[in-house]
């Protein structure tokens, strides 16, 4: 095969592609397949277009490699081209070993597209670890072109190999304490949910400015919240268990009872559970048991108003009797267990005039055949409510003492009780002047008017003689203050208050959403970078810290570029706000200035000696 100038073959494997025999070559520039004897490769993938690789499973007979790559001739984001290669060596073990070698060679050159998953893994000292190459995307940051998490063989080696070749990847800092797999999962979840955060993550962590741990150390609360959310377990379903049969073509009915359904039947029909334990499997087979259950009168009377449907069955007739016995037993309402209180508000709702008439449907003899259905519903409601309370079924306290206690509690009137004197402690404040010093900021306010302070103590008599009260209130008040000045001051103050209190004054500026987003991003990235820069500068200087600081400062230009772009965009954009450009500029002014200040401060600090 003809090579491009400077190209070196690193590995070649005998493979079949499109039923042709040939060689799959990994060079330092591309992955190419060349038919035996041909000079030009039939197909090739430049490494910059490389997307994902997939390998056949260990169990499969054929040894295959599937490569997907971006089509260099079409725009980004179009359908990738997929190439599949079969190893021609009939000895699958040897073929696999050869494939692994090829993949190892390949891993040295392929760029890491899956930035987030790669970074999360490397940043925390974890290998990608998945045996399958097409691991699930880790988050939105992994969205761009899919994932090439690597195969099992190169996963372990991936970190060290790529770090030599791919500067982007190697710059991701590895945290001192590796995060657990669980933590990584939480972080990925957070990133996938919060687009803004993932963008910030991209600009800071993926760009290598700060380490993964540093990024998350200021966002512990987000992680904690996410962890709690992930721990929440779903409660049991509150839906009504509806066993609907499938109608077969032959006209038969077919019920499907899975263990899950069976469990729900047991909770809904405690009697069936009892019967199941008593009969299955030594008396009847499980299948037979369920068959009898769905055909039984017991089951069908709960499903339809017509209670007589279904056939009689010895097992389930017993259940019916048992159920009726529980509910029909009037001894449940032993008068001794009832409190002697009469609730006068019980019938308050019954008001025929307004249409809220007393319930007539519950008359015993009228609805006897519907009774099971009522009970079923009531039982179900009870189960649902109990699952919310997360408690086991509570039995009503059936004790005479409980009834007595309720009666006593209800008849005690608090107003008639003798109040117990409250325990009080006298407040003895040692030094009241401390409050004043606390509030007045060391007396800075009281010194606002130095003339007053200098006046010194005055004679009491002169103080009082100086004060007089005149009853002539209709005298002229001219000369007591400048009205223009006062009104100017008052309206300025009111304007300020108005500005602060207007709830949507940012909305009033009519800034388009995308601009708003861009502004927020500029601010977010800038502040985060500055925070880390200032932190580095506060710590004792070391060459390593200095390098990181320098990296952050260089990254400032990206933010500044973004700021310029945003302002330019605002200037050209059509908007209701005629001064959109200058407004946006003003909004971005603080961050621009802060970045400059940070840059200057860092430059003024100079390199530490050992770094020179």
């Amino acid at each position: 095969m003809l090579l491009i100038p400077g190209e070196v073959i690193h590995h070649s494997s005998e493979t079949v592609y499109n039923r042709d025999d040939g060689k799959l070559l990994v060079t330092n520039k591309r992955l190419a397949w060349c038919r035996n004897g041909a000079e030009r490769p039939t197909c090739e993938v430049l490494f910059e277009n490389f997307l994902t690789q997939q390998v056949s499973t260990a169990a499969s007979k054929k040894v295959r490699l599937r490569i997907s790559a971006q089509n260099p001739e079409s725009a980004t984001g179009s359908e990738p081209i997929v190439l599949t290669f079969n190893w021609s060596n009939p000895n699958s073990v040897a073929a696999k070993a050869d494939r692994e070698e090829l993949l190892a060679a390949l891993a040295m050159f392929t760029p890491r597209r899956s930035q987030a998953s790669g970074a999360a893994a490397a940043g925390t000292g974890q290998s990608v670890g998945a045996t399958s190459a097409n691991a699930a995307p880790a988050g939105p940051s992994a969205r761009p072109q899919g994932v090439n998490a690597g195969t099992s063989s190169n996963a372990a080696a991936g970190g060290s190999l790529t770090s030599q070749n791919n500067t982007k990847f190697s710059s991701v800092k590895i945290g001192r304490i590796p995060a657990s797999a669980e933590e990584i999962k939480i972080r990925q979840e957070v990133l996938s949910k919060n687009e803004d955060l993932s963008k910030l993550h991209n600009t800071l962590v993926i760009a290598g400015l700060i380490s993964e741990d540093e990024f998350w150390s200021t966002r512990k609360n987000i992680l904690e919240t996410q962890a709690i959310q992930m721990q929440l377990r779903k409660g049991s379903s509150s839906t009504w268990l509806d066993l609907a049969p499938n109608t077969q073509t032959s006209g038969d009915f077919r019920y499907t009872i899975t263990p899950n359904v069976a469990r729900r039947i047991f909770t809904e029909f405690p009697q069936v559970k009892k019967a199941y334990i008593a009969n299955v499997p030594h008396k009847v087979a499980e299948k037979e048991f369920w068959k009898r259950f769905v055909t039984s009168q017991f089951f069908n009377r709960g499903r339809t108003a017509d209670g007589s449907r279904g056939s009689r069955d010895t097992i389930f007739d017993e259940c019916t009797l048992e159920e009726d016995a529980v509910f029909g037993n009037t001894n449940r309402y032993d008068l001794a267990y009832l409190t002697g209180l009469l609730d006068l508000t019980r019938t308050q709702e019954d008001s025929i005039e307004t249409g809220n008439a007393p319930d007539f449907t519950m008359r015993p003899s009228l609805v006897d055949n519907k009774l099971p259905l009522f009970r079923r519903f009531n039982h179900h409601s009870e189960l649902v409510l109990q699952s919310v309370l997360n408690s086991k079924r509570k039995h009503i306290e059936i004790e005479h003492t409980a009834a007595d206690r309720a009666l006593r509690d209800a008849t005690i009137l608090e107003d008639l009780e003798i109040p117990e004197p409250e325990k009080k402690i006298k407040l003895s404040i040692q030094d009241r002047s401390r409050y004043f010093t606390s509030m007045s900021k060391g007396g800075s306010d009281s010194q606002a008017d130095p003339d007053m302070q200098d006046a010194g103590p005055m004679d009491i008599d002169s103080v009082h003689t100086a004060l007089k009260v005149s009853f002539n209130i209709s005298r002229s008040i001219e000369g007591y203050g400048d009205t223009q000045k006062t009104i100017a001051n008052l309206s300025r103050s009111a304007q300020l208050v108005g500005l602060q209190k207007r709830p949507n004054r940012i909305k009033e500026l009519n800034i388009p959403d995308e601009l708003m987003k861009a502004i927020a991003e500029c601010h977010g990235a800038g502040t985060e970078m500055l925070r880390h820069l200032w932190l580095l500068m506060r710590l004792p200087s070391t060459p390593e810290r200095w390098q990181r600081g320098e990296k952050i400062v260089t990254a400032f230009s990206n933010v500044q570029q973004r700021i310029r772009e945003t302002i330019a965009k605002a200037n050209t954009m059509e908007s209701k706000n005629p001064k959109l450009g200058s407004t946006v500029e003003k909004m971005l002014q603080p961050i621009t200035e802060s970045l400059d200040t940070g840059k200057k401060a860092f430059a003024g600090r100079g390199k530490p000696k050992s770094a020179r």
Partner: protein
Amino acid sequence: MSEALESDASLLVVVLDINASAWARSPLALDDALQQTIIFINAYLALKPSNQLVVLASTRSECRTLYPAEPGSISDGEDIRVYEQFRAADIAILSGVRALLSSASAAASRAQTEDSEHSLISRALSKALCHINQMRSSTLDAVWPRVLVLSAGVDAAAEYISLMNGIFAAQRMGVLIDVCKVAGAGDSVFLQQAAEISGGVYLRVDARAGWSLLQTLLFGFLADHYTRQVLYLPGNERTDFRATCFCHKRIVDIGFVCSVCLSIFCRMTPVCSTCHTKFAVRGGRVERPAANGANNGTQGTARTISQQLSTASTTSTLV
């Protein structure tokens, strides 16, 4: 509480701070300030016939209700040429202040103590709240109460607790506390908080810089509850709520607050150094501000400022 209607009456309690020492140094004479205040009060009474008024005056030694005056206490000797409806109030206020001044002068010369610029406002505030409560319970119509403090002296540290209690009581009763600092050096930190907490307006009239008292009163304090819903009133635009700790006088963002006396500390202490309350601290030493055990009635608890603020915004917050 529902929203105020246009037809609802107001109840205004004016608290006059008659601190002789402070007024003597003020560039605006007490006499002139009184005149302008009375014009404001007349304007208030003229706004709505159902508007009610209480005027209190407070000196360092006592606090009196000037209006409504007790029958027979006003001498008819003085004559004021005003609209008949205002006459009673005007005469009561002026003669009341005059009487108060003479008795304060006598008390001061008797005691032979140096008069102080520190004003005692909490007494008057409590009395104002009592008046409001009384008037509220004696009428079935909706009355919207507010207090206007015309402050002259400087804050007295000794009355911090009682003043704060008064402010919180006012907040619970839905009473606005408006504060107009007429004389005296600088702003009153306590009264600034009073206005902020109760939702009132704080304005300082700097007579030396040419501010007009009457104009400030009319523009800043005449609006009733109903009108205030639609107005941006001046004032309160930059109240500094940062607090300094009692132990080192450092400004703290997060600290410990004694639940009994509201002292602020930057570090956890087992005993409050201000009121000697022993705190119930679970789990030994506390490294950083954190919620502590419940108050069992005999012992205090230390709370963080942020917690304190959620219930009663007394001390500090980030500005």
